[in-house]
């Protein structure tokens, strides 16, 4: 009568364990994703029932001058964020990858902005970048230069917000780079030094190539993160001046929750999804053809 111990479970057992996750995934992710595809073909103000309007939302989007600007802003933000985060994250990681007294303090300090609320970060930077009383502009004036309007100038606002986002998040990528750096065999670096390589050469010839898998991991996640820029834009510029710092994510918020044009907002979200999808495919492609050959 006794069964072997590995037979105690039946086919249903694994399902029992995954049911909570599956339900959560369906209710909070998959069903909304599919529904919003349908909604993107409707006119819906949340009050009445959605009205099917065919491709009208997409037609309106594609014929809108502002929308093209918003798409370009989204990519500009991403570019600054991805390049900035990787350069700053890596630079910080190299800087603190040393064993000196008190380094733990610096590691924590650099990580602190990551866990600070984006709204708080936005308010503080708004103060620091303020045109008349801001710390940054006062410093610039002190050395005799004319400071710009960081947030009030249509050409600068988006770059400023993206840079603050880089400042906020670099610590996070620093930790990942640090893990990668500490995984590099010190013997290799030492033998390079013995062979006469200077610090510059060892970094670009040894450290960086050996860090490639980490670098591509960071590249992937910075690209994904670069589209999540709502909070800081809300706290710092509200998309302004005149759409100068408006991005797809912020425009989804405006249309869905300020104008209550849920159908139109869903269409924007789907265009964003297409861009993110293309980026992901591009990423996989690079990883397949570049990273593996370096392993």
């Amino acid at each position, binding site marked *: 009568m006794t069964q072997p111990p590995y037979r*105690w*479970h*039946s086919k*249903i*057992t694994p*399902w*029992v364990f995954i*049911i*909570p996750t599956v*339900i959560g995934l369906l209710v909070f992710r998959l069903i909304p994703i599919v529904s919003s595809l349908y909604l993107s073909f409707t006119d819906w*103000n*949340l*009050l*009445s*029932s959605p009205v099917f309007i065919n491709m009208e939302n997409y037609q309106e989007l594609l014929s809108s001058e502002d929308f093209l600007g918003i798409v370009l802003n989204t990519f500009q933000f991403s570019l600054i964020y991805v390049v900035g985060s990787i350069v700053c994250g890596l630079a910080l990681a190299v800087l603190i990858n040393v064993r000196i007294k008190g380094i733990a303090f610096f590691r924590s300090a650099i990580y602190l902005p990551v866990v600070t609320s984006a709204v708080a970060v936005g308010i503080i930077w*708004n*103060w620091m*970048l*303020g*045109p*008349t*009383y*801001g710390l940054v502009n006062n410093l610039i004036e002190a050395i005799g230069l004319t400071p710009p*309007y960081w*947030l*009030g*100038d*249509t050409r600068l606002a988006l770059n400023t917000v993206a840079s603050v986002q880089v400042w906020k998040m670099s610590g996070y990528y620093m930790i990942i780079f640090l893990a990668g750096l500490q995984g590099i065999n010190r013997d290799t670096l030492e033998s390079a030094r013995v062979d006469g390589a200077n610090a510059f050469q060892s970094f670009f010839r040894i450290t960086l190539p050996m860090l490639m898998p980490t670098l591509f991991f960071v590249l992937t996640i910075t690209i994904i993160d670069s589209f999540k820029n709502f909070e800081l834009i*809300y706290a710092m*510029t*509200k*998309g*302004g*001046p*005149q*759409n100068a710092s*408006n991005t797809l994510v912020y425009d989804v*918020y*405006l249309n869905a*929750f*300020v*104008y*209550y044009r849920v159908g139109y907002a869903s269409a924007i979200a789907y265009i964003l999804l297409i861009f993110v999808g293309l980026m992901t495919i591009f990423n996989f492609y690079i990883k397949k053809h570049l990273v593996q050959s370096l392993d």
Partner: protein
Amino acid sequence: MKKLLMVLVVLLTLGLLFAAGRTETKAETEAIELEWWTWDPDMLEQNQQIISAFEEANPGVKINNTIVGTKEYWTKIRIQANQNKLPDVFTMSSGYIEEWAKAGLLYNLDAFIESDDTFDNFYQSIFDSSREISNTDSYYAIPFALVTTVLYYNKDAFDAAGVAYPTDDWTWDDFRKAAKQLTLDKNGDGKTDQWGHWFYGRYAHIEPWVYANNGKLIDKNTMQFNPDKNAMDAIKMLCDLVLVDKVAPPQKDMTSFQQQDVFSQGVAAMWVDGSWFVDTLRKNVGDDMRWGIARVPSGPSGPSELTYGWPDSYAIAPNTKHPETAWKFAKYVAGEGISLDVYMAGKIPSAKKLAEDPLFADPSQQPGEEMNLLIEQANGPMTTSYTMGWSEWRGYGGSESLGLNGTIDAIINGHMGFDEAFKKGTENINAVLKRYYK
């Protein structure tokens, strides 16, 4: 046996999940229960007191108050409306009355108002203002307060510069002259430390001037944005304060301030905004600064007594099971049954007994006697620019940098010329309005 146990576990898990999501079915009771939704979490205690008093006076009635945070309120209550589950009584904003009334989501109150003594206890002018905003011929809301717009001025700064306080007969020339005298570079570094006035494209900063010059932004016949000459003169005058007279800063100079702080920190000596900032100033400034309120000066096309003002209201669900009780409660909570200390200072009670209370213009608190200006405004003519899609074309809240707000900011920031900005702005605004008024 184990299989059975597993099936039981699955059923139990599913059962629990569904039970958690299901709404509770209540046992049928004799008592009338009303759902009441409001949006200000600070009002919790006061709401409880109101409920206790109402329930005591009306045995058999039970009120359930749900307070939703201000930011989520409209999204949540829209979904309630969509699901046909609107609370019996709920807070309604003037900005949405037209859209909701036309969608059949507000109870038509005409029959109630005709058959009882509502206007013995409440100001009819405030109800009428709400009806006008609804763009219909019926009353759809019970206003509990009126908010207007006023000119705030810093008495300390006026005294220091030797400028007489604003009066009701101030012209725009008087105002500009005062603004010039109040614009000061106190430390001689070539930069202005105190501006005479300050504003940006915000609705409450601009429109009071438009109406004080008998202007109109919206053509009510076509429901298009078509500012008349008086309106454009008002906006031009304001822009010139920044661009020509240099007595007000461009919007981009003030990005590091919370908007209500510019005046209270003494950076600008005058400021036009909503009357509810009386409360904010009392709390933030205390006795550190002496300040007052005055009527926004009439323009050259005046004199105009037209005030930019609108009511904050309660509405009743069209499908409420207890319309009479809901009406009774809404009137009670709109003023009949409550005391003056429940009001945010600067909001004008729609209930006569509260507005006429001598403590409304409490002499021990700033701005003292000048608070009577608000009562005068409440008795005079009022107007607004509310339409469907207002927050989108006006540029409000999260869209503050866009719409008409963004247009005016672009002018005073020097990004665009006046005519160019208005040409582009008008096209965008009318594209929005055309979606709502086909």
